[in-house]
């Protein structure tokens, strides 16, 4: 296999070194004792065993304390990143093509777990009204825009803020790590997004809390978005409301060719317009540079 998960070399090496150290310590402890006396042999081995355990335990606790920042400030989100999500990414549209590459016909709702209330709103979709109201960007809000064929430009705005620019609709999403608090005010198309690296969620003391559900994680980027201005999940007017909340998981995988892919799994919950969480996955391929980057204005019709 030539594929590899994208751990930075430093973390990978640190883990490898730790494993090698444990291996050598464990092997030495199990080496045969030259003493011919069985009782001495047993006693000596027992002492060596507990001593080894104690040493290993102390080292691991010390290692964890270091990793969790007990000895200093917790690492910044940028420093703690398990993979590099920055760069240019292009949507590769191999799924839901008829709903993403062209504006779908009125009333085509296949796949979306709508409520009756949702259907009433969607059946009344009128792009001219949206244009008249200055709401051409209703399908470019956070819960809809990631399904629009687009390019992403992702970069660190600062050590704890990740910025995602999207050329379709010329939108910007901002992912805040740490203990960021929303300033409040009016809801926006992109809402407020709070992010953390899975498995690296930290409490106020900087200590790791792990996954709140106690369930395993792939180790990606988790983003929770709220405070959204109501918009469309699909270009033909399938709505999400102002109380919608979205959780996203971003993973980066390297394929055998060496290509990097950004895999986004998104879960939209909306008590008014969705009868169950709306779960889709979307993929983007990394590009070398800005050659295809083409910011365009929002369109209510295309």
């Amino acid at each position, binding site marked *: *296999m030539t594929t590899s998960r994208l751990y930075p070399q430093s973390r990978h090496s640190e883990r490898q070194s730790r494993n090698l150290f444990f291996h050598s310590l464990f092997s030495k402890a199990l080496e045969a004792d030259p003493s011919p006396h069985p009782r001495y042999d047993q006693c000596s081995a027992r002492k060596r065993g507990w001593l080894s355990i104690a040493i290993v335990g102390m080292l691991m606790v010390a290692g964890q304390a270091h990793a969790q920042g007990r000895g200093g400030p917790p690492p910044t989100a940028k420093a703690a990143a398990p993979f590099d999500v920055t760069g240019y990414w292009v949507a590769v549209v191999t799924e839901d093509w008829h709903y993403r590459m062209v504006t779908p016909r009125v009333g085509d*709702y296949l796949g979306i777990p709508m409520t009756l209330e949702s259907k009433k709103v969607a059946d009344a979709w009128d792009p001219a009204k949206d244009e008249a109201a200055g709401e051409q960007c209703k399908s470019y809000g956070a819960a809809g825009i990631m399904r629009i064929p687009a390019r992403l430009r992702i970069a660190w705005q600062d050590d704890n803020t990740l910025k995602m620019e999207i050329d379709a609709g010329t939108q910007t999403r901002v992912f805040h790590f740490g203990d960021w608090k929303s300033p409040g005010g009016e809801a926006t198309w992109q809402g407020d997004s709070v992010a953390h690296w899975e498995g690296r969620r930290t409490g106020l003391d900087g200590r790791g809390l792990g996954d709140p559900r106690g369930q395993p994680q792939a180790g*990606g980027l988790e983003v929770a978005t709220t405070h959204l201005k109501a918009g469309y999940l699909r270009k033909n007017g399938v709505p999400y409301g102002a109380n919608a909340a979205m959780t996203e998981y971003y993973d980066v995988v390297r394929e055998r060719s060496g290509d990097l892919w950004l895999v986004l799994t998104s879960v939209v919950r909306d008590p008014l317009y969705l009868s169950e969480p709306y779960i889709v996955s979307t993929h983007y391929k990394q590009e070398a540079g800005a050659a295809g980057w083409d910011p365009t204005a929002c369109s209510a019709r295309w």
Partner: protein
Amino acid sequence: MTRTRMASALGILLAAGAPGLAQVELSGSWAARNHEDFQDRFQGPNLVDYTGLPLNEGGRARALSYSQSQLSAPERVCLFYPPYYLVMGPFGLKMWNETDPVTGDVIAWKIGGWEDRPPTTIWMDGRPHPPKDAPHEKAGFTTGVWEGNVLVAYTTHLKASYIRRNGAPASDEATITSHFLRHGDILTLTMLVDDPIYFSEPVYRTRTFQLESTAIAAMGPPCIQADEGTKEGAVPHYLPSKNPFVDELTKTLHIPPEAVMGGAETMYPEFRKKMKDKYTLPDKCARNCGGPRFGPPGGLAVN
């Protein structure tokens, strides 16, 4: 005894203190969340619809020659469900692992089959893939490794089959690379299908599943070859330029013909610009339109 105690204690310490060494649990019944590609996965795609498929000229010609009646030929009755049907079809999947009875090491991960789709065995014990000229099986041959908390599987030795349920082909030279990404109770499966014979670029698909307590069967009923009336020795097909369904999608959904024929460029955002001035919104959807659901969440609930 001392060694056993020491090993146990060390194991506990390692498990508690070094999460990077742990592998993610993938066992269980994972229900499909069919919120994307609904038509493709349930009713089936239009008979000629290669949008978003990177078919090369050979692949397109082969696809256009396809007649659904081919599946009535006895030797092809069970051909339709290759391993990538996992991301083409509407069904959930059941996963479990098989371990060495002495060491406890995982020898293989298993994905249960479903009717015509054979079960998949992902060998984790480092065995090599068979030689190039070894026989190809319906399930192919798959090996896997953990990369961090992600299971990565690689499949070779597949039989020739279809990448879309309308006869768009994939050859027996195709390979699959899969990533199993677990986030809590959600499993995202990526599949890159690379086919040097019929594609100009790999096909990349991702699908989501959700862990559920209702068991999914580890195996469905077997595919049984039967006589469905196709004349022996005949292969139903369309000759070049004789496929009667070529313009169906253009008539019904106003998709431009060059998009219907597929090709790598139809996968990228730039292609929208080419279509913009040619596309007009079709009439309101009249049937198979979806809408509010009244059945149970997820799975096979049809809207």
